Structures are given as structure tokens and as C-alpha cells.
């Protein structure tokens, strides 16, 4: 399908027929944004499972270092009596973080939901560049293969931490090279996606869909795409530099006269801190890439199930933009104790403090949205509310780290681990679960089981808090991250029982996801059929068929209002779809409302 310009929504059956394709063309090498979105969704969910299992490996080692791992320990580590070896432990946490960040969170937000929702929510029939879109998915595969196969090369997968700090990363085994190659492909894939999203949102909105009538999800995706487009090239370049250091011996990141492991290395003349600056120049904005889309989706879900307009739409938009803007000048707060000039630390401290502000505004507005609502406690809503509740914790713990003197103590401790898991798991992942429960009917045309969903929510919510909240306390004791055997330090010796508790809760949390997997797969085939708009939501996507066919809409969507006109006094129903013409207009022009098409 060719890129269409605004308003030219040619829609006829011949057009569809022209695109009848083989199975491979329809489902595998598809250029339809919905199929690509689902390809992303399924790939990322599988990696989510792998990443989660790796996390259990980490937890096992932290709770019971050197003890025999049941069942799989015998198979994997027979040489050492079923223990996790320390170098495999470094592989575990490196790959857990890498997979979760680059293969799960970023692609599930931008790739899966961005792809699926953007054209539907703005009333377009597809992305601006469908082929580019397809390529952005298929460029993930070299990365999947590189990272996946790196487990089997000599020395194991990447083991220098997900931050891949040189010089350690330069001396790591060949798994690290594969890691860098994988990272490069992920970067290229995301880059293609972000260009596509920006173009689509700017160029392909339905008539009447002004920028300030866009749902928050779209705003978040839009700003995320901008962030990615500007920050990613830096990481890709840095990744190439590290690759050159490893392969050609260029020495961008190693100082003069440096040797390690008894091997003379290339000439040097570089600086290890340079990598940290380049890496965090991307990876701090990446933190927002990993949360903004979830914030957008949560805003939509909360407004829908509070049956009430979003509180402070424009401040919400401005605060997302503010987070994105400030996000570019706070990377140094990852480097307060790195040896960077401490005077710079002060600057970064102030900018970091300021970035807490838009987050606070968003939180207050979500609370404002819930206030005075008529709340429906659906599974999606519960996940969205838990996003807000958990994001408060993640946001407030960030203030400790922004305070440079306090950061001296808690840097690289479990306080940090607690903080980013509260933001990324309790925040983003819960938001993503909410989004799956919310948009599943649109994706597959069937409803997910609410009871199973609530069981899934209850135990996930319970165990994630039992897992991650105590990590704050570990951090207050100074318990460092990434130690294969922390208990030989007298300072941390007494923390083992607490760690055992955390590990049991983590195991329970991962087990709970079985309920989700079963619900997801069974509902996909046997769930009750969903109509076009099962939630009585306002967004354009809910006016299309479920699941939407090729070309998305079976009518020409024209937008008359913003997406959050719930409980509007203008109409009798408590929702007011964006494309429903206002009553006076109907009278004046005698326009028929778009036929409420029976499915």
C-alpha cells in the first residue's frame, strides 16, 4: 500500500483484493502495521519469559550463593556440583538487563503498541512507510540471533553488564562482540520505527484530528520517537567505536599504556569515561523511551475506566515534552561517582531534580482524573492504577539518587535496583499488562477472561511489591549490585534471610505469569467475541472493526473532538466517540452518523 496523504483515505474492495497475498506475505513478511505490531508483541513476550527466567537465576545466586540449583543446576553446571559459576552469574545479570531493555520493553512499547495503535488511533489506514515498518521488525532478528547464539559461544554471552563499560567490555570474550552487533541491529530497527512513527503522526492524521485532539498514547509515542531519533545515533556510534576497539584495536576507550590480563593491548590514548558519556547520552533518554509510552497508554486507560475526561490534558502533553527535553541533559547523574569532574555533578543534580517536576505533574493529573470518577475496576484499569501507585514509589526514590551526596552512598546498591524495577517493572510492565488487557479485544476480536486477569493482577501486584520494596532496604544497608557472593562482607552478612524472602517472592511472581500466558493464549482462540467498542471508549480505534481489517476503517473517520469526552453533558451516553458528529451539526447538515456497523 502506498503512503497516503492526509484525507485521502481511498477505501474500496478492489484495493483490498489487490493485496490478497500468500500466507507468508500476509502473516510473516507482512507490511500491515497490525501484523507487524503483533509480530513484535509475540517476539517480545517470548523474550520476556527468557529474561524473567534469567532473573530467577540471579535471584537464586543472591539468595543462596554457591548452592546447588534444583533440576537445571545439575544440567547446566554439573562441573561444579550444580552451582552457578561466578562468570555465569555475570552473564545472567548482563543478559537479563539487555534482554529486558532492548528485546522486551523498548520493542513492546514502540514496536508492538506503537505499531498497532498509531494508525488506528489517528484514523490512518496504515503507517506512512509500510515497507520500512516491516524492515524495522526484521532487523530485530539479526539481534535476536546474535544475542541468543552468544550464550553458546566460548566464554558465554555478554558479561560486562548491560552498560558494557570498557575496559572490562574490551577484555570480555567473544560473546561481547555478538552483544555489540545485536545492539547495533536493535538500534537500526528502532531508528526505522521512530522515523516511521514521526512521519505517520505528522502526516496521516484523519481529518479533524488536530495535534491537541490526539490521545495521550499518540503524544507519548510521538515524543518517544523524537527522543529515539535524536539519542540513538549516539549509542550506535559508540557501539561501533567499542566494536572497533575490540576488533581493530583502535583504543577509543582505553588510556595510554594500558594492559590487562597480561596481554599488551593497542596503543590507547582514549578514555573509559568517554564511553560512559556516550552510553548514557542515549541510555538516559532511553529510560524515558521505556516509560513515556506506558504513561500515555495508562492515561487512556484511566480516563476510559474513570468514565471522566483526562484531568489536565495540555499539562499532561507539556509535561511529556518537558520530560523529553530535560531527558537530554541529565545523563550525568549516572556518573556522579565515576570520576567525572565533580563540578559537573552539581549541574546534573539540578537538571535531575527538575525532571522530577513533570513526573509529579503527571501523577497529580492522574489522581485528578480518578477523583470524582465512576471507576470501573476492570483488569486493565487495575493495572493502570497500579502503574500510578508504583510510579509514585519509583519517582520518589529517584529523588534520593538525584541528591548527589546521598547518591555517593546508594550508587550501585540495591536501592538503584529497587528504583528502576519500580519504574520499569512495576511501572512500564504493569502498564503494558494493562494495555494488553485493554486492547486485546481490538487486536484479536475476542475478550480476555476478567477473572483470570484479576487473579493475575492480584498476585503480580502483591509479589512485585514483596520482591522490589525490600530492595530499598537492602540498598539503605549499602548492599551492592552484581555481587555473586555478597555475604562474605560482614556489613551484608545478615541480609541473607531478606534476600531469600525476595527470591521466594520473585519465584511466585514469575509463576503467576502462567495465569496470564494461559489467559492470553486461550482467549485468543476461545474468548467471547468482542464488539467494536467493548469498553465504550472514545478513541478512533474503537470505532473500527475488531480486529480491524486491511486498511483499518470501513468508513471515513472524521474527528470532531478530543479523545476524553467521557460523561459529557452533550450526550446521553457517558462516552462520546471522537468521530461522532455533534448533535447540532447533525441537525444542521442532516449528516448521518457513521453507520454503527454490526460485526
Amino acid at each position, binding site marked *: 500500500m502506498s503512503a497516503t496523504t492526509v484525507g485521502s483515505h481511498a477505501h474500496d474492495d478492489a484495493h483490498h483484493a489487490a493485496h490478497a497475498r500468500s500466507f507468508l506475505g500476509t502473516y510473516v513478511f507482512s507490511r500491515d502495521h497490525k501484523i507487524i505490531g503483533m509480530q513484535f508483541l509475540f517476539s517480545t513476550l517470548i523474550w520476556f519469559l527468557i529474561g524473567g527466567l534469567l532473573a530467577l537465576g540471579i535471584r537464586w545466586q543472591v539468595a543462596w550463593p554457591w548452592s546447588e540449583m534444583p533440576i537445571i543446576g545439575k544440567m547446566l553446571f554439573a562441573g561444579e556440583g550444580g552451582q552457578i559459576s561466578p562468570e555465569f552469574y555475570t552473564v545472567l545479570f548482563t543478559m537479563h538487563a539487555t534482554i529486558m531493555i532492548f528485546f522486551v520493553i523498548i520493542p513492546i512499547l514502540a514496536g508492538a503498541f506503537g505499531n498497532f495503535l498509531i494508525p488506528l488511533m489517528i484514523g490512518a489506514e496504515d503507517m506512512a512507510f509500510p515497507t520500512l515498518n516491516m524492515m524495522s521488525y526484521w532487523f530485530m532478528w539479526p539481534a535476536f540471533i546474535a544475542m541468543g547464539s552468544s550464550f553458546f559461544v566460548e566464554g558465554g554471552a555478554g558479561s560486562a553488564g548491560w552498560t558494557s563499560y570498557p575496559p572490562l567490555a574490551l577484555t570480555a570474550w567473544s560473546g561481547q562482540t555478538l552483544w555489540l552487533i545485536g545492539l547495533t541491529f536493535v538500534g537500526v530497527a528502532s531508528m526505522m520505527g521512530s522515523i516511521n512513527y514521526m512521519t505517520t503522526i505528522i502526516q496521516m492524521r484523519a481529518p479533524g484530528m488536530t495535534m491537541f485532539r490526539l490521545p495521550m498514547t499518540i503524544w507519548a509515542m510521538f515524543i518517544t520517537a523524537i527522543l529515539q531519533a535524536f539519542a540513538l545515533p549516539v549509542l550506535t556510534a559508540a557501539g561501533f567505536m567499542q566494536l572497533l576497539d575490540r576488533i581493530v584495536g583502535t583504543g577509543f576507550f582505553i588510556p595510554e599504556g594500558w594492559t590487562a590480563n597480561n596481554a599488551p593491548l593497542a596503543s590507547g590514548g582514549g578514555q573509559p569515561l568517554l564511553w560512559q558519556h556516550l552510553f548514557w547520552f542515549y541510555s538516559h533518554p532511553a529510560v524515558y523511551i521505556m516509560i513515556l509510552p506506558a504513561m500515555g497508554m495508562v492515561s487512556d486507560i484511566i480516563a476510559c475506566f474513570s468514565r471522566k475526561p483526562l484531568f*489536565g490534558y495540555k499539562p499532561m502533553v507539556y509535561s511529556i515534552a518537558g520530560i523529553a527535553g530535560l531527558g537530554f541533559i541529565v545523563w550525568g547523574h549516572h556518573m556522579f561517582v565515576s570520576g567525572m569532574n565533580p563540578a559537573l555533578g552539581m549541574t546534573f543534580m539540578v537538571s535531575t*531534580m527538575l525532571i522530577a517536576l513533570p513526573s509529579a505533574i503527571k501523577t497529580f493529573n492522574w489522581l485528578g482524573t480518578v477523583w470524582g470518577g465512576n471507576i470501573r475496576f476492570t483488569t486493565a484499569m487495575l493495572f493502570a492504577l497500579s502503574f500510578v501507585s508504583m510510579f509514585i514509589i519509583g519517582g520518589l526514590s529517584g529523588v534520593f539518587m538525584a541528591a548527589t551526596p546521598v547518591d555517593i552512598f546508594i550508587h*550501585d546498591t540495591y536501592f538503584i535496583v529497587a528504583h528502576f524495577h519500580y519504574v520499569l517493572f512495576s511501572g512500564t510492565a504493569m502498564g503494558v499488562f494493562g494495555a494488553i488487557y485493554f486492547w486485546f479485544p481490538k487486536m484479536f476480536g475476542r475478550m480476555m477472561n476478567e477473572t483470570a486477569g484479576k487473579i493475575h493482577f492480584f498476585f503480580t501486584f502483591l509479589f512485585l511489591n514483596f520482591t522490589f520494596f525490600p530492595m530499598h532496604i537492602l540498598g539503605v544497608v549499602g548492599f551492592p549490585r552484581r555481587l*555473586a557472593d555478597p555475604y562474605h562482607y560482614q556489613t551484608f552478612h545478615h541480609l541473607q534471610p531478606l534476600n531469600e524472602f525476595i527470591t521466594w517472592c520473585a519465584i511466585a511472581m514469575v509463576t503467576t505469569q502462567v495465569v496470564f500466558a494461559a489467559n492470553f493464549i486461550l482467549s485468543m482462540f476461545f474468548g467471547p467475541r468482542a464488539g467494536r467498542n467493548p469498553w465504550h471508549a472514545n478513541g478512533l480505534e474503537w470505532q473500527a472493526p475488531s480486529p480491524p481489517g486491511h486498511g483499518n476503517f470501513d468508513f471515513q473517520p472524521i474527528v470532531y473532538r478530543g479523545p476524553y469526552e467521557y460523561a459529557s453533558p452533550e450526550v446521553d451516553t457517558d462516552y462520546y466517540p471522537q468521530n461522532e458528529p455533534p448533535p447540532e451539526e447533525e441537525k444542521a447538515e442532516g449528516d448521518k452518523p457513521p453507520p454503527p456497523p454490526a460485526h
Partner: protein
Amino acid sequence: MGKFWSVLFLMVPVLGVASFAVAPLYRHWLPLDVSEHGHTIDHLFYFILWLTGAVFVVTEVAMFWFMWRYGHDQAKSGKFTHGSHSLEIVWTIIPAATLLFIAIYQMNAWAEAKIINPGAGPDGILGTADDMPATLEVTGRQFEWRLRYPVPPRLRNEALGRPADSKGADDDTDKDLFVVNEMHIPVNEEILINLKSADVLHSFFLPNMRVKQDAVPGMKIPVWFRTMETGTFDIVCAELCGWGHYKMKGRLTIESRAAFDKWLVDKYREQSATHGLQPVPEGDSE
């Protein structure tokens, strides 16, 4: 069900606060602080803890209350409001002022911990201070801390049994003491450490001093603190440095100046040994 879910959400602030209240009773809290600037850091920590704690409780309880109060009701519908301009202004200005206050409030503590080097004289130039602090060099290496102490001629003479003012000290090949993992420092003195790395990044972390600084190859980074109490504490590596990262444990012993000098002398004597154990005569083996 709405009430059930709202109570579940109420558990977040309740259990959250409770766990922070109970943790200190089980020593799951800030480790003993024996340094001077550690008090400042702890004070800041508590300040932020109380502040964020208050915000945490208020917002989470508000969330609970809204969920409790505004559950689904067929008879009513949600309030039709798009927001409030004045509210937005209020909840922008108040957090902004608070955050800026924290930022400014802590700048001194940061400067004292990382910027105002005690080795600098009143003119701010390194190496011109009248009373140079006790200095040592710490080098992170996979996977241990290598320490180097300058041993003053007086102590070297003492160690090698020379007269106290012997000029022989000038001819010593090793004028420094090299030790591994075992750091001794005198109490109540300003300590200045030159932190280096022999291979990869390490992070020199003294939990009881509230000191943490990455060791970067190619850089010599000054670290300073003043100890207040004697005792034995851990030296921890806090930056991933390879598969044996967890092994990088050191021991910090803070002791009186006299004990410290004696330790220096003993260690230096040991390091200069030209005699080992002697063979055991036949038939007297263990």
C-alpha cells in the same frame, strides 16, 4: 470489588511505611557511620526520606480514597471536568520549589565530599596545604585492592633496626609499603587517597565512611575522609569489574596513630625480609 481493590492499594503505603519503620530494628539500616562527612550524608538522607515519605503517604492515601469513594455506581456518572488551571499551577510550583530547595541545600555537602580537596592549601592549589593529610595510594586490580603507603625514613630506620636518624634510609630500594586488601588508617586524621586502577573500572566503596568513588584506568582520583572511631570495616567493590567482582573484599582497620605507626613498621620489616624459615634438621619434621 472496588472496595477490595482500594484496600489492596492502601496496603502499599501501610506496608511500605511499616517496613521502613521495622527495618532499623533488625539492623537492616544504614551501617554504622564513623566518618565526619558521613553525618552530613545521613542527615540529607533522612531529610529526603521524611520529605518523600510524606509525599508518598499523601498521594497513595489519596489514591486509595479516590478508589474507595468513586467506585462504579450505575446511578451517577463521572464529573465532567477537563482540569483546573489554578490546581495545575499549585502543583507545579510547590514541587518545583521543594526540589530546587533540596538541590541547593545539598550543594555544600557535595562540595565537601568531592570538590574541596584537603590536600589543597588556602589558595586552593594541591600540595600546598601546611599539614598534608595522611596519604596513600589505592589501586584496584582484578580482583583485589593493592595499597601503597609511603613509609617515612624514621619508621623505615626503626623497622630495619637502624638508628632513628640514619641516612641509610635514603638508599632503601622500596621506600613504600605494599599491602593487599588490608588497609590501616589512623583515627581522627584527614586521610587522602589517590585512587587508581590497574586494569578495568572498580569502585572503592567504604560503607561505613559513606565514601564511594570509581577507580578509572588512566586517572588518579583523590578521595578523602576523616575517621571518627576505631574499628574494623569492609572495603567493597561497587563497580562490576569482571567475573570475580565479588572477591574484591578489603578490610579497613581504623586505629590510633601509635598503633598505625607500629603496623607500618611491622609490615615494612616483613616486606624487607631477607631471611625465610630455615630447614628443619633431619628427623624433626612435622
